């Protein structure tokens, strides 16, 4: 027989205290966007993120990038989202691609490049290489909470084989609910319609991520 449910009424030790929502009057009908955003960002006790900054952020963040000029965009897909990044070199396109994924998860302008992480691996095809860069960083995020803000990547292409030898150094910091904003969660990277277009002066990458 299973033990009796001892925890049934002992919640207090488990629940963390979050700043509670205080509205001017019960059930207010929001009249301005800042009021509405106070409804949304109800954890208004967060460090630097105030409700008005959230709404401002919302206005400018939909397409514009964080700090550096953004070489990426989000393309429509029924249930998921397609990342499209580009750059003069493969390395810069890969770097933009990674940043575009994190840009979907949080607003990168609040992320400080205060610590760094390294990943390196070998892949047996370029597609796997692109896939693994995103997958590795996604796992880093889900296990250590590390958000990539800037990334340097070095891809060594093996002579006579399609394989890649990849090394990435990323700067960013650990995700903190008090200081950072929450975007949409990325569940997984897919090979679906994964495209790498390489020209002399421009590289374009397309990846669909499951959200």
């Amino acid at each position, binding site marked *: 027989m*299973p033990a009796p449910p001892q925890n049934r009424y002992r919640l207090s030790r488990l629940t963390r205290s979050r700043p509670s*929502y205080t509205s001017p009057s019960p059930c207010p009908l*929001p009249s301005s966007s800042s009021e509405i955003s106070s409804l949304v*960002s109800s954890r208004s006790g967060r460090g630097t993120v105030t409700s008005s900054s959230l709404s401002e952020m919302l206005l400018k963040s939909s397409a514009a990038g964080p700090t550096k000029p953004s070489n990426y965009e989000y393309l429509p897909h029924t*249930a998921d989202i397609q990342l499209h990044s580009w750059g003069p070199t493969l390395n810069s396109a890969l770097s933009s691609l990674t940043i575009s994924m994190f840009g979907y998860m949080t607003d990168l302008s609040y992320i400080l490049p205060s610590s760094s992480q390294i990943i390196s691996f070998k892949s047996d095809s370029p597609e796997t290489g692109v896939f693994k860069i995103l997958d590795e960083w996604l796992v880093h995020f889900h296990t250590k909470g590390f958000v990539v803000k800037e990334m340097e990547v070095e891809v060594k292409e093996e002579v006579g084989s399609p394989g890649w030898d990849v090394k990435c150094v990323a700067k960013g910091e650990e995700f903190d609910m008090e200081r950072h*904003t929450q975007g*949409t969660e990325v569940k*997984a990277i897919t090979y679906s319609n994964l495209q790498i277009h390489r020209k002399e002066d421009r590289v374009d990458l397309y990846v669909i991520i499951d959200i």
Partner: protein
Amino acid sequence: MASFAEATGDCGAPSTSPTVSTVRPRIVRTYEEHMKYIKKLTPNSWSILPGFVPGMSVPGTFYVNSRLEQLMLSELRQSCDGTGVGGFIPAVTQIANVAALPGIVKSSIAMPDVHSGYGFSIGNVAAFDMNDKDAIVSPGGVGFDINCGVRLLRTNLFEGDIKDVKEQLAQSLFDHIPVGVGSKGVIPTSPGDLDSALELGMDWSLREGYAWAEDKEHVEEYGRMLQADPRKVSKRAKKRGLPQLGTLGAGNHYCEIQIVDEVHDQKAANRMGIGARGQVVVMIHSGSRGLGHQVATDSLVEMERAMARDGITVNDRQLACAKIHSTEGQNYLAAMSAAANFAWVNRSAMTFLARQTFAKMFDSTPDDLDMHVVYDVSHNIAKVEQHVVDDQLRTLLVHRKGATRAFPPHHPLIPVDYQFTGQPVLIGGTMGTCSYVLSGTQKGMDTTFGSTCHGAGRAQSRAKSRRQLSYTDVLDNLNRKGISIRVASPKLVMEEAPESYKDVTEVVNTCHDAGISKKVVKLRPVAVVKG
């Protein structure tokens, strides 16, 4: 396994050969040519005839009414017009591609909420013969969010009881249940606990005191899949799962406080304890979080290798699969079951938190508030089930991806409480619309392997929603309807707006009219908590 070794031997493909060689080329036709293969059978169902795509051993079937069929066919038309760059495969083609997989039985079936997905379309049901040595299992037929599902809790409160405290209640739920990107669970778990949870499912929740004994009775599989083997779950998946146990997630996942709005089947509703109009219930929609996503990702990589080795031919590279009785197939089923257990533990943890929220708010106990689990359904899962096909009882591996099991009255696998009503089916609506409770029917058992729809299904892409909808308009709309909302991410408000989805009522009515499930209760939200 002898059959497995034979298959490896005669395929002749070296293990290093690229998997591309096992993908059949796509047929290029005009829309009119395509339509010769698609026939309307009844006002609510269509058939896709073999030949629509190469290799179909059974037809495809999809359930849509006159309004939903337009979405379906326009998607096909668009794919014929386009150049194919950056586009995606329409759901009709995906249903047909699944009908060409080895070992499929009867038909590849799609529910009214169908839309294009990864390999399989969302809303696809496909059954594979367990006794066919070539039959396959596919992670794409389950989806990334293994055992994503819906749970409904009832209360003995009425709308009037919560009217004045609705805002506080929504806030309190938001404070109790960790939601959104980067949120961490509040249930203390060590890696050892996680292994036990993966193995024991809701028995773990019960042992640790997060669930009631009677909860298990009202959950598919009693909240525990016995095939689960935590050793088949990668370290990486466990690392992702550990901090996320007891978190809701983001995207379309939510916890809602809802009101019983319409009762369509009084007898069944009474049996479920939700027969009074105005009664307050709580709906939780969540899944196996990062753990399940990683299990799916890991298996896709493994299966690509197995496909090349075993010479499995498919129409689309995304339909990664392995023979059920191969090592890869068995490993996936064991890992998937463990992830399914994780999802039940996860929903149980949130049930616990929701019960505490209500108990605190009303200064009572969850028992006194009668907060029982009405039912808990899984809509992304593969299960071994017995079905009668061509008058023969067959053991099948039924994949349901964005489709819900809906067993009829008197089925041995549904709890004793629902023996006379049929299995409760929980259909989560979209933010600010409505949700439904349905019940399973014999007709569904006979025609769709006992399956029905799972929700509204997306109609519009997320990026388009972000561009077209204004965040304030969406929130204004919700407010006008008297719905309190707490979301962690403002962008999500646009992406998840009702405008981005199909009309859940159309979807449910199609299932009702086709007879594959029956409407019992309609629920209307009054408070929404989301990632």
